[in-house]
């Protein structure tokens, strides 16, 4: 686990560091603290990262300036901020969690657990997914997204207009963010359930979900039961 803490208050940064060490123990490969945005961006560019812990107000700079870049990366972002009013916009951007200051050990551990996917209780609605395209950050509205298809470390985003975009996050990580309206119906597919018109059984016990636009998506054998329980 590689973690970057972006926080301009030395005391708070040390507190987060301490708690991260306690939570992750031996799983922690690296833990870096940056106290300014330029330093953080530089580090993100050159180092592998699994988790970003970001303060939204840094030396008077707005943490949202970095947020678009951060959420388009492969790692998860957790906001730790005093500005609770920014929680909703942050979630809409696709952060994994928002920890308001002052925080205690339990609350931070809960956020860490989300990051290592022990917990999947997403309560907030992501509205945008940031992707990197020709060196720039582009925001895609979730309502335009039909389904995601895992492609190794990346994910293909299939959009309503028939185009495809690539996201740096893995399908698992996107599943965590898109929990409220998307369902993992196959190990390689994450589908918006409101787009599914029919679930068909094909010869050879193959299960297929048909989307409104006519596309067929395979349903995993093990997932079918869950799906039937939830949706049929």
């Amino acid at each position: 686990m590689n973690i970057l803490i972006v926080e301009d208050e030395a005391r708070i940064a040390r507190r987060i560091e301490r708690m991260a060490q306690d939570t992750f123990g031996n799983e922690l490969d690296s833990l870096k603290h940056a106290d300014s945005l330029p330093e953080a961006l530089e580090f993100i560019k050159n180092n592998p990262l699994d988790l970003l812990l970001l303060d939204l107000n840094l030396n008077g700079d707005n943490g949202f300036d970095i947020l678009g870049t951060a959420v388009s990366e492969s790692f998860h972002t957790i906001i730790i901020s005093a500005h609770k009013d920014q929680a909703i916009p942050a979630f809409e951007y696709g952060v994994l969690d928002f920890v308001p200051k002052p925080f205690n050990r339990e609350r931070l551990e809960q956020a860490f657990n989300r990051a290592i996917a022990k917990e999947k209780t997403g309560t907030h609605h992501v509205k945008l997914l940031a992707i990197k395209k020709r060196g720039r950050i582009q925001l895609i509205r979730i309502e335009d997204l039909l389904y995601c298809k895992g492609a190794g470390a990346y994910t293909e985003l299939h959009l309503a207009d028939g185009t495809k975009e690539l996201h740096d996050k893995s399908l698992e990580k996107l599943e965590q963010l898109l929990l409220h309206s998307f369902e993992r119906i196959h190990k390689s597919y994450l589908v918006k359930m409101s787009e599914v018109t029919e679930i068909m059984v094909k010869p050879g016990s193959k299960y297929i979900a048909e989307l409104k636009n006519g596309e067929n998506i395979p349903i995993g054998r093990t997932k079918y039961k869950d799906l039937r329980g939830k949706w049929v």
Partner: protein
Amino acid sequence: MNLRSLPATLLVLMALFATSCSKGTVYEEHVTLFKTGDRQEWAAKSLNDQGWNKYLATVEDGRVFWSRTKIDILKSPESLHPYGLQLEVYGEYEVFWDGVLIGKNGNPGQEAKLAPEGKLWATFSIPEHLTAEGEHVLAIRASLYYFPDHAGIWSLDIDHYDDLLTDRLIETSYMHIFAGAFLIISFYFLFLFMNNKNEYPTLIFSICCFLVFSLVLTVFSEYYFPIHYRYHVIRLQIISLFLLGISFLIPFYFSIQFPYPRLRLLLTLYAGVLIFIFFIKHHAFDFRAVGMVLSMWCFSFGVVSYGAYKKVRGARLVLVTLLLSMVIFMASGFVISLYTGLGLILIGMLYLLSLNIKAQRLAYENSLVQSTRLRLELLKKNIQPHFLLNTLTSLIDWVEESPKKGVLFIEALAKEFDLFNQIEDQTLIPVAQEIELCRTHLEIMEYRKEMRYYWEEEGIDPQQKIPPAILHTLLENGITHSLPREDNSIKFKLVYESDGKCKCYTFLTFAAGVRPGAGNKAEGTGLKYIRARLTESYHSRWDFTSKATPDGWENKIKVYC
């Protein structure tokens, strides 16, 4: 009271006055003939006056001379309603009607010996039996000691005696109401000026109103205030002086309200023109009056037109009142248009003042809102989430790790809250209090940032006052935007210098440099707060600069005495 309605009322009164003076005449006047000498039979109706002159040259030494005027009475008076005769004649004289002495005004022929007696405007009753329809003779036995070249009847009126006495008084009373209104307005605006000595337009308007009041009073007092003919010139001089004052002040007022290029030069030239008119024909009073008033109108028209062209608020309406006064002048002549015109122009000026007062009220209300906003801003400094919640997060950590330090931290925090509480509703506080606030803040920030902060001061006069939390704001900026030096510290220094002209605070930050991007935020909310506070307390008598130095950052606040 709505002052705008007052001049409107005046206008109505003036209109009433203008319509009340038209009536049919009951007589016809023939040429007046003169003869020097003194013979009692010259009063007789039947005298043959063919050898008499139409003009009389200068009468020397106050000698007695006679004048005879044939008058046709067109209509006999009603019974018990005798006719009267109203005269404006220079000199002291006796009046004969058809050979009968009907009145006496002073002592003709004895002026040099006796004290001045009589009045310039006199009214005499004519016995009823002498005013039958037909020809009559008015003979005057007069002497003219003081103005020997002013022989003659300057005005003559025959009407019912009662009406002659009352009509002019009624007219005068209207004009006095008109004048009284301006007296009240004059006082009202004088008091306004005394309460705000910077408002010169208010003072000029007040003086204008007072001059119009004085002018009307001087002109219209002739019907009830007896003046001997030798003092008449003094009265005319006074009237001319009032007109001179009005003619200069009204365009001067408009020049202040609608400033134009080369204002001083043009005003000086205009004053020169007025003085030239005033002295060019020293005894031609009517010429002077018309000349000065017309110059005033033309210059004012120019100034107000410029204002209207520049779209200054209110200029158009004033332009309309000026044009209206010119229309009245064209239609009704000088005397009526002088007073209606002055009334209209003063209404225009009053309208401009009311616009000014409204603008001032709005500015004042804005300043109140601004003060409240600054107070809130100050209050917010300590409860804004970034400060408070970050501090609390650090505090939790200190308490968990080192409760003793945690207690010290809480004490520092409590002290800062307490200091903020003390200065919260003030606009100026002793600099010593502000410094204490800064020191406490640094103590808190040391706990939070785990960095050393040093505070130094030089030449501080602890009694000097400054707006609250402006140094504190500079300190916050310094902490936020500075990179710590090698020993993980930042130093702040406050220097105070003062000479007779200005007080200067220099706030220095010594750091390893400024964080990238910090320079772009030079006009952040912090600096806006500082500027707003300085404006609130010192208006425009301050200067604030903020710039990077090789050592860190330098802020300078100068307040001019």
